[in-house]
Every structure is written in C-alpha cells, then in structure tokens.
C-alpha cells in the first residue's frame, strides 16, 4: 500500500473558513493528521483591552457569526459578576430566548452543510429554507439576521411585547412541523445520508473526556455535559433543559443531537415566552465596574464557552480571555479521522461544527 502526505485546505475544507491539515494517507485511508492553525488570527483579545466596556459589546459579538450571542452574554455575565449587578428577571428570560434562537439557527446551518457535503443539494436547500424562518424571526425581533445585539451590561436592549410574542410563537409553529415531520425523519432514514454518516468519524465517550470535548460532539458520544444543566445561568435552572445524547459518537449522531436540540430550543423559547414576567429590561442606567476578576461560562451552540475578565476600575478591561469549544474539538479530529476514507474528511471536519474565527480570534 502506498503511503504519502497530502495537504487539505487552507480554504473551504467544509465550511468557508480556513483550516489547513497535512494528512498522512495510507492508500485510501487517513493514517494521521497535523493541524496548522492561525490563518484568521486578528488579535481581538488584545483589541478588547484597547476599547471601553461598551464598545467591546459590539466587538465581541463580531468574533464569530454563529455563536455571536453567546460571546456578549458570557462577557456581560462576567462584568455583572464583578460589579455585583442583579439582572432583572425579564431580561434573564429574554436572554434565554436570544440564546436559543441562535442555537436553533446555528445547529440547522451545520446540519444543512452536512447534506451539502454528502451531495444532497435539495435537502441542503430544504433545511436552509426552514432555517430562514428563524433568520426572519431574528431580523424582526432583534433587527439583524446574525448579530442580535441583544445583551448590554445589566440586561438586554430588546423587548418582546404581546404582538411580538405572538409573532415568534407563530414562527415556531411554522418551523416545528417541518423539522419534526420532514427534516428529522429524512436524516434518520435517508439512505444517502445514512451510508455516508453512520460509523464515520467515530469517537467514544472516554476519548471525549480525555480530549475535553464539549457540546454536541461530546453529547453525540453519550457524554451528557451541558452548561445549561451543569452550571445553569440566566433562568435555565427553572426550565428543566433536556440534555440530548446519542450513544454512537459518529458523524450521524452529532447531527442528530443538533437536530433534536433545535426541537428542544423551540420548546424552551415557547416556555420563556409564556412565563415572561413583567419588569425592567436593564439594571439601572450606567454601571460602575470596580477592579476585579470573574470567570463565567455559557453553552454556545458548539459547547462550553468560558470567559475570563479582569478589570482595574476604569471602563477599559485589563484582560479579556475566552476559551471556545472548537479548540478542543478540533484537536480530537486526529481520533475521528484516523482509519476513515479521504472522501470523508470534509464530513468529519463539518461534524465538529468548527468555528475557526472564534478559536483563532
């Protein structure tokens, strides 16, 4: 059998993000991989120490498009922790709605890309069209399709009134049947999807723990870790979040976890809209942030997102640092890929839902 090294990337391996692998191949099979990182390093962590806490809200939101709500949320939680700000209950519920609507759209995007890589373009279009319901909802409620700009220090800066709630529920009612009756059964039964994704890119539960994997990747291997239940923030402790797991740890399981999580996100949004209490949206006008340190974590669509913040009493943070789930998930590709065929590389890369712009910031 002939063995050689081949480069994959740095552009468009599966998503339009730069990933560069040197793949060691034996025949048709992957024998080892080497990752070259750093193609989209923009120095955003450094920039946060050059801007004030308000400007950073907009900067941090633009680290990544798909988890763009989780970053400011973790950042605001950190500042609120340092300053001892009590976020009003209505704002907490609205934060959950913003979080879940992004999760729904992000997960559907990843699952759609899976169909695209498999070559099932009409399914890709169908999932993207269904996802467009969530995109329209975001544009109508928050004013933008991707950057919600929902969070401010001490609360939120959007509101959902009665008409707004009725609109969102109407949109959820449109999406849910498409998801439950059409998309999920297709991913469960369609032969082209199953033959390409079942048993491909396998990682087991123990390896997940070894590599510190997070989010749908870990849950797809049966490791039921979710920040929303392990360390609940906002009002997640009252919502009884169901942690979805699949036992097999292959590409298909990770996709199914993501799809089921969209259904769960729809349930959580409905619950929040029903129980939305009256009250203010923010805690007071302008916060004073004393010197201090804080660590916060939230469940981004890709897994656990950790923020570290250090302030020095001015309104420019001394240090902001974050760790994103893709950092570990990316490393585990060497476990998932070895033994699989070259043609499955894009599928496996996509199955960890990599977010390179978050990881390399």
């Amino acid at each position: 059998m002939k063995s050689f090294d081949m480069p994959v990337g740095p552009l468009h391996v599966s998503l339009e993000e730069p990933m560069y692998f040197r793949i060691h191949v034996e025949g048709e099979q992957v024998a080892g991989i080497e990752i070259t990182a750093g193609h989209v390093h923009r120095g955003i962590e450094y920039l946060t120490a050059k801007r004030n806490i308000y400007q950073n809200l907009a900067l941090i939101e633009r680290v990544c498009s798909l988890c763009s709500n989780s970053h400011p949320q973790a950042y605001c939680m950190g500042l609120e922790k340092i300053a001892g700000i009590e976020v009003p209950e209505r704002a907490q519920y609205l934060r959950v709605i913003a979080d879940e609507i992004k999760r729904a759209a992000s997960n559907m995007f990843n699952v759609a890309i899976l169909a695209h890589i498999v070559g099932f373009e009409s399914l890709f279009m169908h999932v993207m069209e269904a996802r467009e319901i969530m995109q329209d909802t975001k544009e109508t409620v928050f004013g933008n399709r991707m950057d919600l700009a929902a969070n401010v220090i001490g609360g939120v800066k959007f509101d959902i009134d009665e008409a707004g709630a009725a609109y969102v529920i109407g949109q959820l009612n449109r999406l849910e049947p498409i998801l439950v009756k059409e998309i999920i059964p297709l991913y469960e039964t369609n032969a082209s999807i199953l033959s390409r994704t079942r048993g491909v890119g396998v990682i087991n539960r123990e390896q997940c723990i070894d590599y510190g994997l997070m989010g749908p990747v870990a849950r797809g291997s049966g490791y039921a870790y979710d920040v929303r239940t392990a360390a609940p923030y906002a009002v997640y402790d009252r919502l009884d979040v169901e942690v979805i797991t699949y036992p097999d740890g292959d590409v298909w399981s990770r996709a199914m976890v993501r799809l089921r999580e969209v259904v769960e996100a729809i349930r959580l949004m409905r619950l929040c809209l029903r129980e939305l209490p009256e009250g203010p949206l923010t805690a007071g006008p302008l916060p004073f942030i004393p010197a201090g340190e804080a660590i916060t974590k939230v469940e981004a669509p890709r897994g656990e997102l950790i923020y570290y913040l250090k302030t020095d009493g001015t309104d420019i943070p001394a240090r902001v640092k974050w760790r994103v789930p893709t950092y570990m998930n990316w490393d585990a590709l060497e476990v998932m890929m070895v033994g699989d065929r070259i043609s499955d590389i894009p599928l496996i890369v996509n199955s960890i839902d990599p977010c390179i712009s978050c990881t390399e910031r």
Partner: protein
Amino acid sequence: MAFLKILLDNLRKGPATEAFPFGEATTPDAYRGKVTFDETSCVGCNMCEHVCAGGAIRFSEKEDGLHFLIWHNTCISCGLCAHYCPTKAIKLSNNWHLSHLQEEKYEQVDHAVVPYRECTSCGKRLQPGGPMLHQLAFKGANPRSERLMNMCPDCRRKVSYIGEAV
C-alpha cells in the same frame, strides 16, 4: 422516496425568495439600519460617541454649538448609541438603502449642529438641553419648571431661593 413529496410541495409553492428588486422586500420595523439624529432633543452628553464601537460618531465644540458628525460607512448598526442615549435623540431607522459608489464613500456623512442656549436671566452660554431632557428629569412639565429650564444653574438657584419675583 420521502423526499419526493417535499420536492413536489416545494414545486407547488414556487420560489421561496423575495422578488427584490422587482418587488418589495419586507423590512421589519425593528431592523437596525441607518442612524438618524434629532438635534432638537440632543443634550450633548457625548455618550453615543463614547460607546460607538466603530468610532463613527464625532462631537466637536465650536462657536455656534456642538457639531455632531456620523460617518455611516464605519457604523456597524450595533444600536449601542440609541440604547445609551438618555433622550433618544439618536435612533436607528429601518432604512437599509446604503449602497453607493466607491468614490462617494467619504461623503456618507450626516452632520448636525446642536446650538448652545443662553440663560434667559443672565445670558450665559449653556449646554444644550431640550424638552426631552426636561420630561426625563421632572416627569412632566409646569410653567415654573419650563421657566427654570432655560436658566443657568446659578440663576436657577437664585430663583428657587428668593422666589418667583426675580
């Protein structure tokens, strides 16, 4: 086979995209588009300039008043200015028609002058303040508060201390 039904349904439904530019594109009211500025309710607190992530807003003090400037090309429509504006003088409209030629990029600027006021009692130059601020501070208006509104702090104190006679 299950997908055939979906294909047929989609075929029956027709295109899912909007017909723009040949038809109307729906724009929600809450859409964060081009920034609008109302110089009559601006109080010159400069908070919008402070929070502006893109550095799109500039205030400068000149003889005739506070000069407000926004360069739309570096605005990222985050809405922080509108959120932190105490009198809601700066807002985001749902106008997204911002395309222009490359050579016009430095002309995408809106400029407004927020005039200074003069104290009705001593004529001293004052920071701008408008009915919106008045409403915000006193939760309503009466002839007395309206009269005091247009005075400098010193005259206001004098009037409050001595009485309405001054």
